[in-house]
C-alpha cells in the first residue's frame, strides 16, 4: 500500500483516540497497570531465577578418597571422572589444599586449625561439577561404585528441594503472567469494540464505497497497537525507575543481597513489556473487529 494510505490510517486512528479521549485514557491506564504488575512479576522472576541459578551453579559433588590409595589410582580415577559425559569440571583437592581453604574461610577465627598440618585429619579428594545441576543426582551412584572412593557428598536432600521449589515458582509465575496478559487483551478488545460500535455507520459507508476489509481494519489495529504501546511504555518507565531505585537502596540497607544488576536486565524486561503490550493491543482490536466487518 501507498505511504499516503498509511498516513491516512494513522490519522484516522489518532482522531478516533482524540474523540474518545476518556476511553483512550482509561484503556492506556489499564494496560499500564497490567503491564506494571507483569513487570513486577518479570523482575521477581528474573531475580528468583538468578538466585536459583546462583545456588544451582554452586551445587558440587565432593568425593573423598580412601587414605591408602596410590597416586596411580588417583590419576586413573581423575580420567574416569573426566570421561563421564555429565561431568563438566574435575578438580583434585589434596588434603593440604583443603586445609588451606578452611583457613581462608575462617580467617582470624581459625585458630583452632593451627598445627593440623602436622597431622592432617582431612582426606584427599575430588570436586566435580556437572553441566547441568540436576545431573548431579544421575552420577552419584556411579561415583560411589568406583574403587578407592570412600565417600560422596552433594548436599543430599537440599538439591532435590531446591529444584522442586524453583520449578514450582517458574510455573506459578508463568501462569500468573498468562492470566494477566489475557485480561489486558480483553480490556483492549472492549475499548476497541466501543469505538467500532460508535463507528459502525462509518464502517458500513466504507463498505459501500468499496473499501476492503483490511482498509477498514488498519486504523483500528493501529489504534489498539498505540493503546498497548503507550500503556506499556508508561509501565516500563515506572518499573525501570522503581527497580533502579530499589537496587540502590538495597545495596545500602542489605549489602550483598544478590539483586540482578539493572543493566542490561531492565532492557530485557522493558523489551518484553513493550512487546507484550503492543501484541495485546493488536490482538484486542482484531478480536473485536471480527463481528463488525460482516456488512
Amino acid at each position, binding site marked *: 500500500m501507498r505511504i499516503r494510505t498509511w498516513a491516512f490510517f494513522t490519522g484516522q486512528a489518532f482522531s478516533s483516540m482524540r474523540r474518545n479521549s476518556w476511553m483512550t485514557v482509561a484503556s492506556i491506564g489499564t494496560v499500564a497497570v497490567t503491564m506494571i504488575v507483569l513487570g513486577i512479576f518479570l523482575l521477581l522472576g528474573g531475580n528468583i531465577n538468578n538466585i536459583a541459578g546462583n545456588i544451582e551453579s554452586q551445587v558440587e559433588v565432593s568425593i573423598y578418597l580412601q587414605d591408602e590409595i596410590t597416586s596411580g589410582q588417583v590419576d586413573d580415577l581423575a580420567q574416569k571422572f573426566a570421561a563421564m559425559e555429565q561431568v563438566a569440571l574435575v578438580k583434585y583437592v589434596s588434603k593440604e589444599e583443603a586445609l588451606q581453604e578452611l583457613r581462608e574461610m575462617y580467617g582470624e577465627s581459625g585458630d583452632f586449625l593451627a598445627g593440623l598440618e602436622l597431622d592432617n585429619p582431612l582426606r584427599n579428594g575430588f570436586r566435580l561439577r556437572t553441566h547441568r545441576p540436576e545431573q548431579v543426582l544421575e552420577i552419584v551412584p556411579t561415583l560411589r561404585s568406583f574403587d578407592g572412593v570412600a565417600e560422596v557428598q552433594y548436599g543430599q536432600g537440599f538439591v532435590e528441594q531446591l529444584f522442586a521449589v524453583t520449578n514450582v515458582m517458574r510455573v506459578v509465575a508463568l501462569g500468573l503472567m498468562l492470566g494477566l496478559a489475557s485480561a489486558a487483551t480483553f480490556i483492549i478488545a472492549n475499548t476497541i469494540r466501543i469505538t467500532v460500535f460508535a463507528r459502525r455507520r462509518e464502517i458500513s*459507508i*466504507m463498505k459501500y*464505497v*468499496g473499501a*476492503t476489509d483490511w482498509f477498514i481494519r488498519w486504523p483500528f489495529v493501529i489504534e489498539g497497537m498505540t493503546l498497548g504501546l503507550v500503556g506499556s511504555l508508561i509501565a516500563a518507565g515506572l518499573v525501570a525507575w522503581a527497580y533502579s531505585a530499589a537496587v540502590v537502596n538495597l545495596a545500602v540497607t542489605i549489602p550483598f543481597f544478590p539483586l540482578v544488576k539493572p543493566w542490561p536486565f531492565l532492557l530485557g524486561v522493558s523489551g518484553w513489556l513493550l512487546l507484550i503490550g503492543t501484541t495485546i493491543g493488536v490482538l484486542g482490536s482484531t478480536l473485536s473487529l471480527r463481528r463488525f466487518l460482516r456488512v
Partner: protein
Amino acid sequence: MLELYAVSKIYGNGVVALRDVDLKVNKGEFVFIVGPSGAGKTTLTRLILAEEKPTKGQIIVNNKVVNNLRPSEIPYLRRQIGTVFQDFRLMHNWTVEENVSFAMKVIEAPRRAIRKRVPEVLEMVGLANKAKHLPTQLSGGEQQRVALARAIVNQPYILLADEPTGNLDPETAWGIMRVLQDINAQGTTILMVTHAKNIVDEMRKRVVALEGGRIVRDETRGAYGNEN
C-alpha cells in the same frame, strides 16, 4: 452491463422476496424501479451490491458473474457500482471534500488524480463553493449532491440510487434529478428505486415495476402506473 437470469431470493423465514426475475439493463440506460413496499425493490439492490446472495439464478455485472463472489472480491464489485441512499450516508465529521475524496482514497488513487477529479465532480453537482463545509452545515438536497459526487467520483459503470429523493421536497428533488440526468448523459447507467410518481411520469424513462417479487411491467418509456 447488468443482467439477471431467473433470480429468486427466499429468506430463511420462508419469505419469498424475489421470484424468477429476468432483467437486462444496457450501458447508458436510465431505469426506474417502482412498486409497492415489500415488492422486492430493496432486495434487488442488495443482491446487485452482493450484500446478499440469491437463492437461485445468476447476476452478471459488467460481464462478471457476481452472485457467488468471495467476501474478498465484493469490494471490487462495489467500486464499479456507485450508490446513493435516501439517508445520504455521509461522514458527519468530514468536510464535503473529504467525503468525496474518501472514495478515491479507498481505491488508492494517486494524490494528483484526487486533486484534479474531486473539484470536477463537485462542480458537476453544483457544490464547488461548499468543498470545505461539513454535511451538517448543508441542506438535505446539498447533502444528497455530496453523496452523488461521492458515488460517481470513481466513474462507476452503474449508479444505484435507492429513493434518492425520498427525504427531499419536490423542488429540491428535481434538482437532484437534473444532476442524475447529467450523470446519465455522460454514459453512466442509472438504476433508481423510487416512489416519486410525478418524477417517473415526467421523465418518461424505462420503468420496471415489481410486485410480490415478480416483474409485472417493463416499459421503455413508461409511467409510474396505478400500483401504489
